[in-house]
């Protein structure tokens, strides 16, 4: 049987994490499923969790007044969804829209924040991984801003 601990350990985001820590994470985790068309979260709502995507595709949407919403990024199998749970004011900045059937592990942000406060080694492991994701997404966003395919 697939335990939550094993699923977390096998997700690329937590690759090489010591089993003691995956055990701690599993205490805050739950299996979740979203059907296509569902909004997993919406901009401005409280960000109390993040997701390890096991399969499916999520579109991050941004709304601007008098413009059609645009999809600024999609996330798929092996990706991580959400880091607003990590930093105050713990509010989502985008809409997350399931465009396919999503299987994911949800991690309770409050539970995890409390564990990270108690165990700074765990906190460091978690932050290290999120910092890497943030760095990659920042670089991708810079490239997106350059609008490299536009006619000059």
């Amino acid at each position, binding site marked *: 049987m697939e335990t939550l601990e094993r699923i977390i350990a096998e997700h690329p985001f937590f690759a090489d994490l010591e089993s003691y820590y995956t055990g701690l994470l599993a205490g805050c985790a739950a299996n979740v499923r979203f059907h296509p068309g569902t909004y997993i979260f919406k901009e401005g709502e409280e960000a109390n969790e993040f997701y390890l995507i096991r399969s499916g*595709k999520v*579109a*991050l*949407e941004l709304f601007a007044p008098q413009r*059609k*919403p*645009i*999809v*600024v*990024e*999609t996330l*798929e*199998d*092996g*990706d991580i969804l959400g880091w607003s749970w990590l930093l105050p004011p713990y509010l989502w900045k985008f809409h997350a829209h399931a*465009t396919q059937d999503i299987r994911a592990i949800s991690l309770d942000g409050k539970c995890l924040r409390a564990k990270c406060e108690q165990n700074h080694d765990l906190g460091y492991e978690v932050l290290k991984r999120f910092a890497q994701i943030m760095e990659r997404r920042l*670089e*991708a966003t810079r*490239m*997106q801003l*350059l*609008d*490299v*395919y*536009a*006619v000059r």
Partner: protein
Amino acid sequence: MATAVTTDPMLPQPYLVQSVSKETPDTFTLKLAPEEGANGSSFQPGQFSMLWVFGVGELPISISGNPAEHKQLVYTVRSVGQATNAFVTQRVGAGVGVRGPFGTGWPVDAARGRDVIVVAGGIGLAPLRPVIYEVLRHREDYGRLVVLYGARSPHDLLYRQELVAWARQRETQVLVTVDYGGMSWRGHVGVVTTLFKYARLKPSQSVAMVCGPEIMMRFVARELISHGLSRNDVYLSMERNMKCAVGFCGHCQYGPHFICKDGPVFAYEQMRPLLEKYEL
């Protein structure tokens, strides 16, 4: 290796427009055939021609057709100015002049026995399409083919039907992304470098061929190197203002190189010091 130009390289050969097809709102593919009695021209994937639109001017355009089809030359052109607009609005049967092919090609022969990673951005897929044709035509000679393609939006994707057909070929992975997606787009959204995490790569046995805007190629080359490819196994197609196409005029000089004659395809190892210079 470049194909020898058998006629005077400065003398355009007469060709006729066989067909014009719209790829995107501003990009068109034209098929040209030599006028009766004129010789056709073979080419290496990655080479370019100088196309004369009579009375308007001359354009350097990469050949985007199938190297196995000797009876025609195919060009995909984005209409961004007077000359390109004049070219894409040619009617079927109209006459144009063709010089070339010129320049170095992609290392398709050297890549035999290895995996081929094709990374294209925007209209950069056009010069790489002949590589894909060549690998698929000699499928047994190559390992996996991985095509990573990024465009600005879903409306800007080239060769949509072919992308689907290529993805169905064995040992072939085709991943497509757009920088911004509308609500009806169900594919991947993100810059082309975000596709690498979904690509099944074997860096030590791969050769990568990259074409797109220069800044995109810089990001992609860095990504490929971080995945373990050697700088000598990453090839870029460079673009500068080409005029004579045979290294006489110097318009396309880039550092010590003439892009028209020494390129347009170069190993990243050769280009890296120049790509990082502000002045060039």
